[in-house]
Every structure is written in structure tokens, then in C-alpha cells.
């Protein structure tokens, strides 16, 4: 199969470029990550990318394949148009080849205080939560922080330092939605900002690309609804 892969070596002084590879691989049942590993093992040791779980749960290997942000490890080779173009996730700085600088992305995640805030004394056993209340968290807590959504979002492209992006906002809402959390007001105060939240214009690229089939736009909509309700 034929591949065109984005290469950038920060030590070489050369500009980034696309390099072509011809790999002997049977696409049947194989994923883009299998091809990247095979290229690294047999054709070009210097090709650099992140990977860990190789089953779509750790979020290490978000890349752009033929124009779409995906996890390399769960994207089938079969059916991809050749040459298969693989680039780093858009808009973030490139450290090397397919490895992007995630610092900004993680900073936005930290900014939403992604942890439960509950100042009551802890009970002896678990806090109770009805299955219905717990179901409110489904579609939120499963986020793997791969960055596919945020880096596909035009609002993030325009204001990467100020707009928190879909992944961070999804996690922001994950704690707002948790009946055990007591900091809803504080969280809403932080998000009530022309940039942090309101740069989301409902373009929904995030929903389209999310490899876990989550819906950040819907979560953002629910935050906006809460802000409106609170203002009334």
C-alpha cells in the first residue's frame, strides 16, 4: 500500500515535508497504526509517533488520516484511498513527525477543574446515586483526551489560547452533571465568558470525529442552557 506521511525533524533545520512509502501489507483486518509500526520496523526507524494501548482506549495516537482526525489504532486500512495521507493533528505545534505538542490542550483540561468538588464529610460507605442520575454522566466520562475533537474545531483554530475547546468543555460538563458535585455555580461562573465557552458555534466537527462517539456539542449546549436558566 502507498502512504504519504508528514515528516518533520526539528534538528535538521529542514522544513516539514511529505514523504512517500510503499509498504507490503495485507490491509485485511489491519489498522493504520499497524502500518505505521511496520514502516518504522522495516522501512524507516526515524518515523516518530505516539502509541500505547493499540485498542482505542488510551488516546495516544490521534492523527489526521486523509483529512480526518482519527485514532490510528482503530482506523481500518481497508477502504482508505491511496496514497494514504497521514499528518499530525491540526493546529497544535509539531514536535516531530506525527507528534504534536499537547500542552495547550492539557492546560484547557486542567482549567475546568476536572475533579469532583464536594466539601461534605465523607460518609462511611459510598454516596448514593440513582442509576438515572448516574446515566447523566454517560457520554461524558468516557472521554480519552485524544484531542481529535478539539483540533478539528475551527473555533479552536482561531482562538486556541482562549477557547477551551470541546474536550475540556465536555469534562467541565461531566462534573456539572454529577449529582455528587457541589461546585456547579463556581464552574458556571468560570465558563460564562465570551471566549472560554461561547466561541462554540455549533459547527459539530467534534461530534463527527470523536472516536468514542461522544457528543461535546450537546454537552456545551447543556452548559449554555444552565447559564440561561441561571440568568432568569
Amino acid at each position, binding site marked *: 500500500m502507498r502512504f504519504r506521511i508528514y515528516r518533520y*525533524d*526539528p*534538528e535538521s533545520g529542514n522544513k516539514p515535508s511529505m514523504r512517500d512509502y510503499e509498504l507490503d501489507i495485507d490491509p485485511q*483486518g489491519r489498522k493504520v497504526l499497524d502500518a505505521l509500526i511496520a514502516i*518504522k*520496523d*522495516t522501512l524507516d*526507524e*526515524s518515523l*516518530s*509517533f*505516539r*502509541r*500505547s*494501548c*493499540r*485498542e*482505542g*482506549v*488510551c*488516546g*495516544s495516537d490521534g492523527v489526521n488520516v486523509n483529512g480526518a482526525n482519527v485514532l490510528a489504532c*482503530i482506523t481500518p486500512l481497508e477502504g482508505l484511498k491511496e496514497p494514504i495521507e497521514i499528518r499530525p493533528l491540526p493546529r497544535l505545534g509539531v*514536535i*516531530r513527525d506525527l*507528534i504534536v505538542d*499537547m500542552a495547550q490542550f*492539557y492546560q484547557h483540561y*486542567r482549567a475546568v*477543574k*476536572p*475533579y*469532583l468538588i*464536594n466539601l461534605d464529610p*465523607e460518609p*462511611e*460507605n*459510598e*454516596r*448514593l*446515586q*440513582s*442509576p438515572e*442520575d*448516574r446515566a447523566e*454522566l454517560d457520554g461524558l*466520562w*468516557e472521554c*480519552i*483526551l485524544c484531542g481529535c475533537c478539539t483540533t478539528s474545531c475551527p473555533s479552536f483554530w482561531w482562538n486556541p489560547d482562549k477557547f477551551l475547546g470541546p474536550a475540556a468543555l465536555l469534562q467541565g460538563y461531566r*462534573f456539572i452533571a*454529577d449529582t*455528587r*458535585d457541589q461546585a456547579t455555580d463556581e464552574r458556571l461562573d468560570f465558563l460564562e465568558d465570551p471566549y472560554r465557552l461561547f466561541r462554540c458555534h455549533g459547527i459539530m466537527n467534534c461530534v463527527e470525529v470523536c472516536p468514542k462517539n461522544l457528543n461535546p456539542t450537546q454537552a456545551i449546549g447543556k452548559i449554555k442552557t444552565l447559564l440561561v436558566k441561571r440568568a432568569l
Partner: protein
Amino acid sequence: MRTEMRTEMRIPKRTFDAVIVGGGGAGLRAALQLAEANLKVALISKVFPTRSHTVSAQGGITAALANVSDDNWHWHMYDTVKGSDYLGDQDAIEYLCRNAASAVYELEHMGLPFSRLEGGKNAGKIYQRPFGGQSQNYGGEQAIRTCAAADRTGHALLHTLYQRNIAARTQFFDEFFALDLIRDADGYVLGVTALEIETGQPWAFESRATLLATGGACRVFRHSTNAHINTGDGLGMALRAGLPLEDMEFWQFHPTGIPEVGSLISEGVRGEGGFLENKDGEKFMSRYAPNARDLASRDVVARAIAQELRAGRGCGPRGDYVHLKIEHLGAEKIKARLPGIRELSMQFAGADPITDPIPVTPTAHYMMGGIPSNMHGQVVAPIHTGPEEAVPGLYAVGECACVSVHGANRLGGNSLLDLVVFGRAAGMHMIDYLRENPIPRPLPQAEVEKSLGRLARWDKPKGTETVAGLRGDMQKVMQDHCGVYRTEALLKEGLAKLDQVEARLPDAALSDHSRMFNTARLEALELENLMPIARATLVSALARTESRGAHTREDHPQRDDDQWLRHTLYFSENDQLDYKPVKLKPLTVETFQPKERTY
């Protein structure tokens, strides 16, 4: 890193009270204990912490909460001792099971999104499901004991612990690869050397206490459920520091991995009512384990599947897998309780379990052995006097450690529990140790230099061997010679082959000598950790002439308590083996005497 402090050393140094190597569940839980005690703690991880392999844990964390079935920790302890085939240390197992419920409640209080029970007097409590090897009343009815967040419990646990560490302001060094322990002439561990991956800069991390939480090493095998990053880095560090590894012959082959790919299909699938079938459509587990059937212990189920495959009753064109069926559970339950499994099965086996069986085969999954430690997380080794002298300043927790609570076979759901119970215990002990040892000892320069020399070795311009080639050959040896069934001849041949692969290692060279984010160099360093682990495994397995738990010797099919109710200790120097007794005496309760193990 901006705050650079020059010492007489060639490399920059950072100083902390404690350094933790590894950002999975065990490392994060220990870090939290230390950070909340206002100690200066650094957590070094070769990946961003939520990429750690804990994230792949599926079915749950076991604790006798009694939310569904009548239960108490004594029964859980009995099951764990029995599951370990009596090789587990009963003091540590008591500690594990006694603290299980509070550990799970603590996670809930931290915010872990456990699934919840419906209706009745237990409405809203943590959801629990049946898991293999779990019984009520010391071997009676199936217990419903494993606490779950759908089938993504590891993800929920890892993210929750990472989030709490953000709140506690733990200092993270993400994408730093630990190279070596810094150990002085008196045996004190004074920190680690580590490579900053992005820049290629080596650093010295000085600390009065160091915790290894580097996870497992199933990447010694060709097919495994493990992430690419599970290369046993902490074990390599321990061996290079002259420390032994314990019980390395015991590796768990999970009954249900997806063939070739290796991805895990949780035991929770059988816990929810799934069952195994051979090509004749027979539910064969009732022949092997008449009572527990599909929920027998993992070693039992793995051997049963291997037997079916050998007898020509495997499915598919090559007859190399059996079927795991859950269609009868119905789409709704599958989507609610097993959404991750369905996703994996569709992505990697091309089968939607709502309508089709999942192909599964025994797959290397978990390392019961590891760095010898006690229930406070202290690394213990025969140094001067006894077999269990604490190595001052060094701790190990989680899969890289051998406490030993899993003995010869781990029960499902006990791994996540191990991480949090002993992560916390190690954190508490380190706090005491740091208080008692307030004065830092001088860093031995020569040790740091030795580590840098190891790194410089990969600058060698040319060689005849590649890292990927050697790794593949090593994995093939382990897959072919150290699987579910072993014999003396098979193991000896494997060891001879491994000798040959190892002999080629000095001829390996990289073609990429760049500094910044050089993943080829990382893979070389990882191979240097994997290779001695493969060796420790073969040597330990060859010596143990009995069958116990996951170690099945066809030439010695019986368990032999007179000779082998003891732990193996392997030292790299001359492949030396030593042994120490199993601790049969629990902390407070009566000993569970070894007896025949049936399910």
C-alpha cells in the same frame, strides 16, 4: 524544563522528597498520598498518565461490599488464597481484602463514576457483578463482588486518580523515561536517572524515597493483551541494581483475548452471563469445572480452552479459537453493561456480540511475579541477613511488584484493587520513612555515569542487527516455549534460543541518532529491559518442577507442596536462583491450609 540546577555532574538535577516512576493506578495512588501530606513529589511517566495501561482494565475492582450478595472480606480472602494456588502470602492477602471495601469507597468519594444498582434496599449503591473464582462462604455459591463502571472500570479509575492528583498539585514529568536507579555503596536508593523524551536530555532525579510503579511486561510475548508500553522498565532497573525478581515463572494467560490482535475481552462478559463454546456448539467448561463452569479461575479456563484447541475442537479455518457467546443477554443489556467490549469485538474481531459469537483464545495478560516487596510497598531482598531485608529508600507497587497477593494465579478484579490498596500503603510508609530519614545522602557520581554510558551505547553508528528484529525474535521464543503448557525440553530449547538472541544484542545499532523525541532509542532501551525479563522467566520456569496456578509443567503435572510451596528469587548474576518460604500466617485470622484446588 526551565529550573536547571548545575551540580558537579554532567547532567542537570532536580531534587524531591519522593520520586514515583510510573503514572498508572499504583503510581498515581501513591503520589496522591504523598502530595496530600504536603511532600514534594515528582511523578515521572514515559507517557501522559492517562495513556497508562491501567486504562485498559475492563471488568472491575473486587471488594466484598455485599451490595448484591451476602459477603465479607474473609470469603474474598479465602478465594484469593485459593486462586493463588496457595502461593500468595497470606499476611498481604489479608491486608488486601481487609482494606478492599474502604479502598473502593474512597474511590467513589474521589468521584469515580461507578455504575449503580437499581431498585430495592440497595438502590443507588455501587453496581457489582460476578467474576471468576469468587465464592460465598469459603467455596460455596458464586459471589457477586466485583465493582464496575460499565466495562471501563480501569479508565474510570485511572482518570479519577489523575484528576485527584491535579487537585493535589502533584508535580508531573510527563514523557520522561526512567533509565536506572541511583543506588549507593551502602545499598540506599537515592533517586533515578531519566531521559526527557522531547529534548533527549538526561536528568538526575534525587529523592530520599523512590517508588517503582512501572506496570507489567507482557510485551515479552508475541501475542498479549498488553499495551505497547508494557516493557517491564522497573524490573530491568531493579535487576541492573543487583536486586532479584520474584516468581517470574508465573504469567497469567487470560482465557479470552482476541486471536492475533490480543485485545482483552473482559471476564465480566462471562460474569454477566456469557459462556464459551467449541466448534461442536458444546459448552465445554462444564467438563472442566462442573461447579463454577465459565467462572472458574483464569488458569483453569485458559487450560480448558487450550485442551479444546489441541483436541481439534477449535473454531475457524485454523481451529485456533473458541467462541464466547452473549447474544442471549439481549442488545439492551449488552449496550448498557458491556459497551466497550462490543466496540472492541466489532473493531478487532469483526463480530457484533449482539448477533455473533466473539472469537477468543488464551493470551498473555498479567505478570504475577515482579520486584519482591512487602505489604508496605518496601522492596525486600536477601542482602545481609534474612531473605526479606528492606532496600532503604526503594518501594515497588502494582503489577511490577510481587507482594505476593496473586501467587501463582491472579483473580480477576484483584489487580485494580492491588494498585489502590498498596499504592496507598506505600505512600503511607514512605511518609514515615521520609520523616525518619530527613538528611539526603550524597549522590554517587559513578552510578550516574554508568547510566549515561548505557544511553551512549545506542549512539554506536553501525551494526548488523535491528531492535525490531531482535524484539520479534525474543517474542517468538517466549510465545513458542513459555506458553500455557511447558516441559523441561521445551523450556531448555527456549533458553538456548534466547541465548542466541541475546548474543546478537551487542551488534544492534540504531539508524536514527537524533536527540529530540527519538522513539527508536526508547524502543532500544525498552528491549534492554524486556530481554532479562524473558531470561528470568525461562530460568525460573525451568527450575520449578511442579504445576501450580498458571505455571503448568506437563512433565510434572502435580502441585508439590513439600518441595515447592516457596517463592522463586531470580538474580541476573549467573542466572542465580534462590528461594524463600510462602508466608502462610495471616495478620489476624487463621491460616488457610493448602488443599486440592477444584472449581
